[in-house]
């Protein structure tokens, strides 16, 4: 039910998880590593199995560290492969994670057969069940465990970005400059990747695999269409994460559908709307801008045409509105619109169905002839 305590706990868990991911997503996007989260997600099993074989318990926090460590190993392997220049970065990702994923499955079936080491049970969270796993200290109920874990993770990410904002900015934009100014871009890179690994692992546990990739990529991508500043890029990404989480969870509760699928769909929808309507980089703006430029080009062409034939023997034939469309190879309707527009601007006059430039129209034509056909 909407606005029940259950709804509030589930939506808050989803939102906090989304925020933790959406803070890092923009950096991955700018470093062209958006799909890295998917790769890390796939190799978690390997780390969990190895950690389980060492500590022998399924509910140990070491499993979390094992999983995150595998994430980092994946990052290092991918970088080493793509730096060797034998394969490209995307192929390096594709080579690394199936290998570790398969390794994890083999290890699990070989050594952990009798312990029911089920990745579903250990790692794949469902947002719906968030209220059932609570964090309690003694008698006191602190709230859903995922909500608190992801809250802390998000806070850690936010703090790290706040402290290292300038350093992350320069090393993401121009690692060479960052290195030459003494900012250790490699250290920053692996620091960032450590945060990504831990965030992926905890988020997997909180809301499941589909949403993790969605949280890293979709809010960042939507935000990218809205802003030209890194700070706002991050802020909008978080806003999209929050909006998508609450709207999506509400829709899931109202329609009684799965939370993860519905939230991901709503976020996709928000991205679609943004793509369409973004003030500067949206499709609608793109179309209207193209239309405006085409109109301006046609207006100028008419004026230049009239100017070029002014005072020549062909002037009468070339300025006759009745066959102007044949000269330009425009449709009659289009020619009519263009001529009317030019007349309404008082660039041309129509005298006994012949067009004549006004002084203003002649001035524009002169300027375009000397300056070249640049339109802004």
């Amino acid at each position: 039910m909407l606005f029940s305590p259950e709804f509030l706990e589930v939506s808050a868990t989803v939102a906090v998880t989304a925020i933790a991911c959406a803070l890092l997503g923009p950096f991955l996007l700018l470093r062209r590593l958006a799909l890295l989260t998917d790769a890390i997600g796939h190799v978690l099993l390997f780390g969990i199995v190895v950690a389980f074989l060492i500590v022998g318990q399924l509910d140990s926090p070491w499993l979390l560290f094992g999983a995150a460590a595998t994430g980092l190993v994946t990052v290092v392997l991918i970088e080493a492969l793509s730096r060797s220049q034998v394969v490209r970065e995307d192929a390096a990702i594709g080579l690394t994670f199936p290998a570790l994923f398969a390794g994890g499955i083999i290890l699990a079936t070989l050594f952990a057969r009798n312990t029911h080491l089920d990745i579903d049970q250990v790692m794949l969270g469902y947002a719906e069940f968030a209220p059932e796993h609570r964090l309690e200290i003694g008698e006191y109920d602190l709230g859903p465990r995922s909500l608190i874990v992801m809250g802390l993770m998000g806070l850690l990410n936010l703090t790290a970005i706040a402290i290292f904002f300038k350093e992350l900015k320069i090393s993401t934009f121009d690692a060479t400059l960052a290195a030459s100014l003494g900012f250790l871009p490699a250290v920053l890179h692996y620091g960032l990747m450590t945060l990504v690994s831990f965030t992926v692992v905890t988020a997997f546990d909180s809301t499941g695999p589909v949403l993790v990739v969605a949280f890293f990529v979709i809010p960042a991508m939507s935000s990218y269409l809205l802003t030209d500043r890194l700070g706002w890029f991050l802020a909008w990404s978080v806003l999209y994460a929050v909006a998508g989480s609450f709207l999506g969870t509400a829709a899931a509760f109202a329609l009684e559908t799965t939370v993860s699928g519905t939230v991901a769909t709503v976020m996709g929808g928000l991205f679609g709307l943004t793509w369409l309507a973004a003030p500067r980089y949206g499709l609608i703006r793109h179309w209207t801008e193209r239309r405006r430029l085409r109109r301006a080009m046609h207006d100028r062409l008419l004026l230049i045409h009239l100017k070029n034939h002014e005072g020549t023997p062909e002037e009468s034939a070339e300025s006759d509105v009745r066959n102007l469309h044949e000269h330009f190879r425009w449709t009659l309707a289009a020619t009519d619109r263009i001529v009317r527009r030019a007349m309404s601007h008082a660039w041309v006059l129509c005298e006994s169905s012949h067009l004549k430039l006004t002084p203003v129209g002649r001035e524009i034509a002169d300027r375009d002839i000397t300056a070249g056909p640049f339109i802004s």
Partner: protein
Amino acid sequence: MMNAKPAVNVADLTVAYRDRPVLWDIDLQVPAGALMAVVGPNGAGKSTLLKAILGLVKPVAGMVELFGQPYRAVAKKIAYVPQRTSVDWDFPATVRDVVLMGTYGQLGWFRRPGQPQRKLADEALARMGMQDYANRQISQLSGGQQQRVFLARSLVQGAELFFMDEPFQGVDATTEEVILKLLHELRNAGKTVVVVHHDLGTVRDYFDWVTLINVKKIASGQLSEVFTPENISQTYGHRALIANPSA
């Protein structure tokens, strides 16, 4: 040489990619205050020479000193202007943001740029004729404007020694003039400037010193002494017949 310690001192520098030498046993001095062009055909190792001097590629052998010290010790006095295609211009940043990055070195870790740095950035932009573009998104710049932003960024570093990789490559006439004026201002202010340059026809007009390389160093020194038809044709082979400026 005007100074006891040259601004750049390279000895026996060899750089190889796998088994192919890109620079072969280079000895090179750049005196302090020189405005020097580094010329040579494509693949001659010009950019690699800059990168090796700056420690961005690891040499197989050889030694590099800047003002008599290793690069790390004098890094703050050095500004490197890479080829403008080396970064992603779709990055969400304004022109001023990018120029401000030049001040990060002086600020060090954690300190944020403030009013003094912004003023410095705006002055540098004005010097490059880019003051009206300070708040412009960087993806909306032309190639020449991008180059001027990179140069403005190097100006705010407060450097004594500049390395520029093909700043004249593919820029418009206005930008070419602005860059040329800047090079001469830097020289007149006593800075040392080393520029990778591809246009043999303008070397004589733009620079005082020249280094000719083609994997090996052919010649290096004052333009009037070493920029000779013999050295040019030795650097470029038969192509120099077309490019050879009247001496």
